[in-house]
């Protein structure tokens, strides 16, 4: 067992251990433990990342039992990327929660969050369908509990979230059962192989994919099924919303990507001779188009709804709904046999599969960029709410004077969310758009344009009023500020310090823009083509 392999399980189990231990500790010590665990996770994640970046897929058969009997953990490029996301965002948000305990809502935050983190990592490294389900359950339950930490008002949203999470998991579980029945194994790799070899099992597999997609999409809050997300994410404590938006829904996204690209015999659909039956292929295409359509709907209507919000956190939550849409736009591309329309043309230097891989890495880059940026934005919004006692945009006018760093970080995060250079959001949009152009899917371009403009609109609407100068004269303001400082329990120093994590995320939003090439290379490790 190499370090990477050790890390693969350690990244799941050690946070879990920490979570359990944290239950026994006092609230201060919990924060320290949380930070230590975060650092540990970063270390373990680095080990996995190094291995993956070297081009190797990390695999670990737990207990020494090989699949199909045992459970295999598996980390390829996709896993490594999401692991890194969770490590980075998790660490920064943990730091925030440690600096400003009020933002965590309750000391119970720490065991729950560490458990959630462990669940996230479990999903990202899982090579087994049922294990994925268990991981999703772990994430879902802890996420619900974390939402509920926001106080009485967030219990109802939490309950709704619980229902959604359970329902989604159930649908997923049924799908897992179907695949188990069809392929006879729970291991993803083996199942994929099995499915590719047995065309008669395809019907079941496709149906399983349908069910699982719907279940996961429910957890992911794709447009018509998104309503639970708004109160849940908006009502959660300041340190929780970023985690939910940046990481928790990414778990479902990760699984969807795994299913569509790694488990399903989609290679067969593009090559007609060994492929799915005609009908199934149509069904799958229809499903992809449905999800892509939902995605487009989400991008546009979610943004429109975000434009109508008067409070910061719901605005950011709707922005999440809108951003979720981007991640589904590539699905129709995936199944379009004409996807490489431009590949064969003279004058272009497109490589084989460049369109699909471009679309995939575009979507992943969008998701990663969203993770970092949204975490920063939510963190800042939560902090503002914490400091000002409200997140109504109207009453936050002029907040920029007192918290310039915070507004700056919000601005940086907005850059990432709008998809302006330099940020991963830009990279993602670039990839997606280039793939769309190459495949001549112009509607994706239209959606991207509209989404970009609308997102700029709502983010500007949310952030710009904070830049307003108060009408009051400066002396009054200072007086007020002093009063505010007295009123809030935390010391001003601590408040200043609490702005740093958000700023770090803002910076990361911009700096990660330079990593596009690296991300693309990582995506190539263990890619389905």
């Amino acid at each position, binding site marked *: *067992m190499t370090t990477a392999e050790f890390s693969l399980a350690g990244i799941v189990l050690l946070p879990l251990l920490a979570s359990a231990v944290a239950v026994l500790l006092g609230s201060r010590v919990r924060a320290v433990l949380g930070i230590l665990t975060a650092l540990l996770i970063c270390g373990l994640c680095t080990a996995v990342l190094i291995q993956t970046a070297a081009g190797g897929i990390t695999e670990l058969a737990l207990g020494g039992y090989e699949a199909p009997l045992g459970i295999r953990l598996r980390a390829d490029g996709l896993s490594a990327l999401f692991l890194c996301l969770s490590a980075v965002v998790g660490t920064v948000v943990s730091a925030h929660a440690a600096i400003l305990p009020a933002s965590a809502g309750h000391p119970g935050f720490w065991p729950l969050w560490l458990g959630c983190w462990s669940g996230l990592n479990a999903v990202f490294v899982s090579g087994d369908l049922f294990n994925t389900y268990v991981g999703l359950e772990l994430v879902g339950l802890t996420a619900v509990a974390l939402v509920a930490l926001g106080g009485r008002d967030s219990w109802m949203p939490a309950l709704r979230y619980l229902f959604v999470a359970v329902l989604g998991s159930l649908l997923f579980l049924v799908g897992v059962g179907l695949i188990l029945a069809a392929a006879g194994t729970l291991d993803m790799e083996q199942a994929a192989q099995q499915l590719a070899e047995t065309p008669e099992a395809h019907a079941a597999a496709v149906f399983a994919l349908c069910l699982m997609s719907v279940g996961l999409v429910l957890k992911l809050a794709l447009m018509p099924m998104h309503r639970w997300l708004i109160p849940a994410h908006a009502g959660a404590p300041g340190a929780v919303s970023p985690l939910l938006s940046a990481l928790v829904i990414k778990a479902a996204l990760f699984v969807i990507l795994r299913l569509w690209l790694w488990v399903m015999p989609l290679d067969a659909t593009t090559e007609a001779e060994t492929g799915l039956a005609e009908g199934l292929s149509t069904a799958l295409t229809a499903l992809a188009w449905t999800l892509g359509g939902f995605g487009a709907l989400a991008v546009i209507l979610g943004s429109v709804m975000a434009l109508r919000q008067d409070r910061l956190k719901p605005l950011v939550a709707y922005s999440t709904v809108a951003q979720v849409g981007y991640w589904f736009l590539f699905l129709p591309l995936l199944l379009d046999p004409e996807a490489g329309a431009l590949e064969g043309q003279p004058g272009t230097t497109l490589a084989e599969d460049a369109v699909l891989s471009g679309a995939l890495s575009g979507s992943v880059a969008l998701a990663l960029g969203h993770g970092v940026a949204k975490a920063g934005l939510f963190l800042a919004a939560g902090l503002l709410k914490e400091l000002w006692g409200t997140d109504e945009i109207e009453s936050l006018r002029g907040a920029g004077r007192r918290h310039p760093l915070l507004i700056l970080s919000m601005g940086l995060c907005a850059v990432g969310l709008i998809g302006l250079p330099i940020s991963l959001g830009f990279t993602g949009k670039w990839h997606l758009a280039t793939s769309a152009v190459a495949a001549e899917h112009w509607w994706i371009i239209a959606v991207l344009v509209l989404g970009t403009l609308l997102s700029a609109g709502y983010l500007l609407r949310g952030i710009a009023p904070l830049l307003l100068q108060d009408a009051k004269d400066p002396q009054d303001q200072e007086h007020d500020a002093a009063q505010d400082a007295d009123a809030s329990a935390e010391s001003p120093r601590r408040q200043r310090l609490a702005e740093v994590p958000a700023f770090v995320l803002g910076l990361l939003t911009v700096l990660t823009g330079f990593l596009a090439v690296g991300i693309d290379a990582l995506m190539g490790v263990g890619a389905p083509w």
Partner: protein
Amino acid sequence: MSGLLPEDVSLAVPDIALGLALLTAAGCALIPRSRLALAAGFLSLGALTALVWLRLDSVDVGLAEAGLGGGILGALLVWLAIRSPHSPAPDSAETISTTQPTSGTRRTSRPILNPRTLLGCAAGAVLGGGLCLVWFQVLHALPAWSEPLEEQMETTGVTHEITGVLLAFRAYDTLLESAVLMLAGVAVMALGRDGGLHQLSLPQPEVPSALRWLVRLCAPVLLLAGLWLLFAGSSDSGGAFQSGAVLCSLLILLRTAHALPSRERTEPWIRPLLIGGVVVFILAGLVGPLLADPLLSEAWLSWQPQWATAAVLSVEILLTIGIAVGLFLMYLTLENPEGVQ
């Protein structure tokens, strides 16, 4: 139809009787307007269902059914019946199931045949029916692990296959599942007043002495059943989850009968008990690689045959306790959702 009936009809008589009894019990569980009667009806339904499973040669399912359906649900229903013995209000179910009903959905009276209710029922039916249909359509391939399962049972330190799967081959899943339960307990403690134990310090409604007597009678039996389920786990069907559930019902009954210690005495030990299982599980999983030679050559969660049984056993005991405590904590919180915080 002919395939469903055995050749010799007389052999089917007990089954038919059982079925009829089941239907009667179901009727008893639905029709009466007294909560106590309903609870009794449900308890008998649970018992009969367990019998049905036994008749179908599914001992493990039967035991689980007895433990969960009979134990926990029974205990819950008894508790409900005691708290408000009158006939249920139309929306009482909702009051129980939701932690905080919104004022908008709450009305003083509602027609029974609410279109929403109908819609919900229809949806449920369609969903259930659809899933069944699907299940039957695709049910043919068998799990591919039967052979390797038998081959590798040696190394697990347990003899029953399901336990082997649970604690050796898929120990990771088990671990995560128990972590789910543990974290549910943690969540309840975080959300509830006084670390979720507030209910323990509240005054209890009086219970009829007959019931108290019944509880005293049942408690040892349930404890025994729980322990049996636990220890049978290594060689027969059974295991931590079932056992934990049964033990939790024991705790509930004890609480009903005012037999539990006060909050102050409970608080110090409840947290360690809750997490003990998971912690030990992970540590045990780490022991393998740490003791291996060379270091870390073994994978996570692998135990050497020489101490596998001991490890599995201790993990299971602790998990059982943790699960029982976790479930009990949840019960405590849900007991009176209005007063948790």
